[in-house]
């Protein structure tokens, strides 16, 4: 049994701990640091917020500002390959220091005047829109079937949906090359069964792009849909049946409207990233497909035109702000509802 002492607020410490604490508290640096930290509002709590905050400010937000800055620059054959926006020029005795700012508008003007970019944007939106709808049509039945299964099956099926997601995206897109090409899996099978004589051209077509996108983004559509459908109160359907509603009608009038938040979430999770998609059109689509992701890549890597690429990125970002904000709001509302 060791001697015990009571702290000022009735806490009990062992004598040893109390001694150490007392000694520490006497030391000026300890007290000074503690006082300073409290004065600056540095608490454990603020550190927890600050660390990821500053990381994201530095590596997520500020980069966008830099992209904006470079979008106004001139392409240079230098390292870095763009001009400086601001320059301090010594104007000599008569004028003193001059802050010379050069904003080149070439990039942004090209966006509007050159058909290339305009068409690429429109085409990207169109492809993304159609893919999202297809993804929804394919994903909804699957999500529905999983949500209505018994619990044991549900877990297994969910795992089977997620498994492809864990394997490489790149490799799965690559797999479609092998399936869609002229002497690929489908054509070989069809010719072997004698259904066709000439191979159907599927690779390097827009069709291949749609297939690739739907395939790759399917889990992103299924999971939010499933999450929503699973929470649905099945007694609502029983009530509908009890009131004389046929199953299909019950689906249209009850299930579908209730699943709308899941539909929107899934659709946004597909629509937004697909607009800027690069890999799938590059590997599966025709070489002249105009998609904004491809354009940006080409302008940057092949053309080494950083300012132009930056301008393209800025325009794309501005376009996406609205859908992203909508998605944030929807997600925020759902999380808040779950928490309290």
């Amino acid at each position: 049994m060791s001697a015990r002492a009571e702290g000022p607020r009735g806490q009990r410490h062992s004598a040893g701990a109390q001694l150490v604490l007392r000694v520490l508290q006497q030391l000026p640096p300890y007290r000074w640091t503690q006082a300073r930290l409290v004065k600056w509002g540095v608490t454990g709590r603020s550190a927890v917020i600050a660390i990821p905050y500053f990381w994201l400010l530095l590596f997520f937000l500020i980069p966008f500002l830099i992209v904006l800055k470079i979008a106004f620059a001139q392409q240079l054959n230098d390292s870095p390959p763009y001009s400086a926006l601001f320059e301090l020029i010594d104007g000599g005795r008569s004028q003193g220091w001059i802050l010379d700012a050069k904003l080149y508008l070439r990039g942004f003007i090209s966006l509007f005047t050159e058909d290339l970019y305009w068409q690429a944007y429109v085409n990207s939106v169109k492809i993304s829109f159609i893919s999202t709808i297809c993804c929804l049509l394919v994903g909804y039945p699957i999500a529905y079937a999983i949500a209505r299964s018994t619990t044991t099956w549900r877990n297994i099926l969910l795992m089977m949906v997620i498994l492809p997601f864990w394997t490489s995206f790149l490799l799965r897109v690559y797999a479609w090359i092998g399936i869609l090409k002229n002497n690929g899996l489908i054509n070989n099978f069809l010719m072997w069964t004698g259904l066709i004589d000439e191979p159907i051209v599927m690779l390097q077509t827009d069709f291949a792009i749609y297939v690739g996108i739907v395939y790759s983004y399917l889990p992103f559509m299924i999971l939010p849909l499933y999450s929503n459908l699973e929470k649905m109160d099945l007694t609502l359907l029983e009530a509908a049946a009890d009131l004389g509603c046929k199953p299909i009608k019950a689906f249209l009038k009850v299930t579908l409207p209730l699943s709308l938040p899941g539909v929107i979430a899934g659709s946004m999770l597909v629509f937004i990233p697909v607009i800027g998609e690069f890999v799938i059109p590059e590997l599966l689509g025709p070489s002249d497909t105009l998609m904004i992701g491809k354009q940006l890549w080409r302008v940057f890597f092949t053309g080494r035109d950083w300012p132009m690429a930056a301008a393209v990125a800025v325009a794309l970002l501005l376009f996406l702000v609205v859908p992203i904000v909508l998605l944030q709001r929807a997600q925020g509302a759902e999380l808040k509802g779950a928490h309290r």
Partner: protein
Amino acid sequence: MNNRITAFRLSALIFGFAFLYIPILSLIFYSFNKSRLVTVWGGFSTEWYGKLFQNEQILNAAWLSLKIAAINATGAMILGTLAGMALARFGKFKGRTLFSAMTTAPLVMPEVITGLSLLMMFVAMEQILHWPQGRGVTTVTIAHMTLTMAYVTVIVQSRLSTLDDSLEEAAMDLGARPAKTFFLITLPIIAPALISGWLLAFTISLDDLVIASFVSGPGSSTLPMVIFSKVRLGVSPDINALASIMVLLVTVGVVIAGFLMARQEKRKVRDMQMAAASGGN
């Protein structure tokens, strides 16, 4: 009425999963094809697996990618946990809306934008701070962490929002300071979420092509970059072999995880029976 499987639901499941899995299975199937023309069957062979392990370029890239993925996953797990804690437990703090937006925007942002902006950031930093020197492992890791921490944040935040905060209050009431409460109580309980966050961050990093292409430098080609440059030119059977190995590893991992979870469920049921049996006393 609802649990009897209908024809519609069954066919949806069959076609759906066939669609999801046939491409993967085809990759594996053709990795054993002797013929170089991947999809024209030339007999069974495992030579491509041998060729794969002799390909230094691929092996180096794989090793590099694994290193980057592991470091990135650990960093993202820490950052994401901090961010998730802040969003789930700290109520309305100043700048919360911006913080919330920044932690979830990377999830949907097209990768070309994130990649481009990060590269430009690194270049600007190099000019002003002389760090990072050139692009390579460091820049790719930082870029990946920025992307994957978003996923971890969502996972942690969602897990914490379902965690009864009276547990943390009870710990504090019993004398544990907030930091201690986190490490002794919160962390052990949300550990599964953190592990799945780590795995997710690892996988995303391992698989990332676009961002890595923007921010990597000479001599630091990641595995996806090597694969991409190869498949741009057409199909290649050693890539099939690589794909099969990856699928195998993932499947093994998923099956193990499934077993562990099933065992945990059984244990839970047994424990509840024990509780009921010890009487309502």
